[in-house]
């Protein structure tokens, strides 16, 4: 060997633990008999929990960003926070899945294997700072999702949703790759900081080729985060996929897409922010309107949450869009990531409620859910808290998320920021209508069914209480997000 390379294994230990768990689940699936397959679920749960330990140590002993592979892979506070978020979401999704996967004729080992692979992809995206690694991370995060969304094999809806998701997903990968290839063709570099340096040296930041590359990347990632006009797959796929996978898609996949968008647009394309900022402002505003107006008409709770998550994506996008125009990226990233983190837990909670109520009634029509809260006050309370938090009612977490976004939009004084703030305010009101409608049906309408027994299994209770605690705490003590501001400052200094 001529070239020796030393790898700081401690820095990537949470990825290594996830890799070990991936290999472990698939090997256990090979050995175990059908009756003892539940051990795989336990192993996956343990693995994802253990992979959280290095995150805590890295956070506690943080001194400076660790740079691996000549700058391709960076572990700073920003990536540590997001890795923690991804691991926690996956852990909660496992808990949501346990009863679901056992209750039917699904393949257990492969299910956990694919979810963990997707988690590994998300972890890679969080740290990657070059074109190659980030692309592989995005693909590893979304690839298993194509398969998992078709996991209900006997159901034509699931097949249709998975095929739509797969075809559009492949197209979006091709678009991202085309954008990357243009960027690489112009600069000949793959690490973000070197690309920016070369672009500056050649004076190419505003050139057509960089703008085209930015637009292609935007279109590709637009599919992953399901913003209008790239959202058409989302309702069908969400409806067809198994419910825990739908929750994961709307939270973790979306977060991975946003993370890739934030890294690429604030680290590579930031000089041409004036051009793509306006496109993002348009996309963000239209996304909010179309998402919310479509959600108003939905009877199916899953389609309703699909459109609601499209509308929420518009909110998450808004601060980055305005930051592109003003150039104040630190504030934009801080607001978007804060919204993303709070959104993750309240949306998981909303899916938990839908999961419980669909199982109890066997009905995918919210108008048949009348009076369910009387049978199960706990489910009723979950519903009220998570849906009102999504609507942004104080003192729940969603309030602080919306507050941060509006502050970021309005404080700039930029006309686009103010316009987007007005659009956001109108949409917050529209959204309140359908979020409150569900709570009203569950609590106040008379039951059209005879007494239904609403059972909440223990894993679901754990998911409910963790999401509940995080949703309420983030609303009452918003100070915990002060760290995030510091983290995004570190993100930009490195």
């Amino acid at each position, binding site marked *: 060997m001529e070239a020796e390379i030393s790898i700081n294994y401690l820095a990537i230990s949470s990825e290594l633990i996830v890799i070990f768990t991936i290999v472990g689940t698939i090997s256990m699936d090979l050995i175990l008999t059908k009756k003892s397959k539940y051990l795989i679920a336990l192993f996956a749960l343990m693995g994802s929990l253990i992979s959280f330990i290095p995150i805590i140590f890295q956070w506690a002993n943080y001194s400076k960003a660790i740079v691996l592979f000549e700058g391709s892979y960076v572990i700073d506070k920003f990536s540590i926070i997001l890795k923690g978020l991804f691991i926690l979401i996956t852990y909660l999704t496992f808990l949501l899945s346990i009863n679901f996967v056992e209750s039917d004729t699904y393949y257990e080992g492969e299910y956990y294997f694919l979810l963990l692979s997707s988690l590994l992809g998300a972890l890679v995206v969080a740290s990657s700072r070059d074109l190659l690694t980030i692309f592989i991370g995005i693909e590893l995060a979304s690839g*298993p999702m194509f398969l998992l969304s078709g996991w209900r094999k006997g159901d034509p809806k699931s097949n249709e949703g998975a095929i739509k998701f797969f075809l559009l997903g492949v197209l979006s990968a091709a678009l991202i790759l085309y954008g990357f290839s243009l960027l690489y063709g*112009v600069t000949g570099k793959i690490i973000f900081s070197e690309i920016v340096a070369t672009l500056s040296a050649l004076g190419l930041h505003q050139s057509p080729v960089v703008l085209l590359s930015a637009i292609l990347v935007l279109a590709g990632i637009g599919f992953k985060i399901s913003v209008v006009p790239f959202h058409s797959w989302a309702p069908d796929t969400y409806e067809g996929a198994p419910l825990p996978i739908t929750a994961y898609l709307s939270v973790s996949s979306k977060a991975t897409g946003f993370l890739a968008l934030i890294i690429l647009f604030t680290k590579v394309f930031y000089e041409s922010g004036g051009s793509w900022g306006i496109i993002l402002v348009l996309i963000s505003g239209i996304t909010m309107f179309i998402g919310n107006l479509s959600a108003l008409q939905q009877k199916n709770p899953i389609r309703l949450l699909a459109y609601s998550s499209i509308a929420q994506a518009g909110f998450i996008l808004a601060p980055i869009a305005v930051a592109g125009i003003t150039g104040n990226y630190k504030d934009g990233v801080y607001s978007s990531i804060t919204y993303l983190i709070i959104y993750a837990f309240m949306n998981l909670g909303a899916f938990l409620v839908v999961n419980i109520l669909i199982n109890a009634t066997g009905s995918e029509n919210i108008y048949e859910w009348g009076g369910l809260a009387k049978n199960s006050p706990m489910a009723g309370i979950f519903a009220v808290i998570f849906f009102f938090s999504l609507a942004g009612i104080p003192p729940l977490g969603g309030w602080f998320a919306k507050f941060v976004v509006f502050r970021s939009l309005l404080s700039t004084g930029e006309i686009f920021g103010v316009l987007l703030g007005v659009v956001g305010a109108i949409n917050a009101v529209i959204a309140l209508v359908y979020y409150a409608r569900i709570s009203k049906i569950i609590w106040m309408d008379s039951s059209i069914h005879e007494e239904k027994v609403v059972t909440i299994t223990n894993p679901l209770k754990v998911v409910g209480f963790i999401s509940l605690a995080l949703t309420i705490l983030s609303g009452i003590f918003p100070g915990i997000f002060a760290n995030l501001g510091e983290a995004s400052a570190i993100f930009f200094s490195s």
Partner: protein
Amino acid sequence: MGAIDIVSYFLILGLLLAAVRVVTTSNVIHAAISLVFTLAITAVIFLLLSAEFVGMVVVLVYIGAVIVLFLFGIMITRAPLGQNAELDNEKNKTLGLVISLSIFALFSYVIINSFDGKMNITEGTSTQVLGEILLTRFVYPFEIVSFVLLAALIGGITLARKDNALIDEDQV
């Protein structure tokens, strides 16, 4: 204009004709064979640009494996061979033409504008250097890619196989 330029232009012309044939023919087998030509010419162009490794990968993986799988897939699934009128979509032909021509115009403008017809082939990357760099500097993405492939493999098999449980309950 050197000899290599003339050869290149002929190759590119052939590439275009083959690529158009892939999408215009209404015979699946013809489309697959045209794709072989498209990829073969692409491989030759990579070799001319002294990217020997990429050229060989295109031949081995795409022509050798992917297209053969296509042909086997078409035959094994008993898809209708020969002319198939359903493959032609008459409905949105004008709209599709307008969109693809405008995208073509945009991309050509940008590429001609930025790269200015210059071709800077300094030196080819030898396969040996590529192999070494893959296992040192790029070892991390290299290993992560293996999980993409593993996930696709295992997930694909799981989705495609016949479920015993479902067959027993007559759900399929």
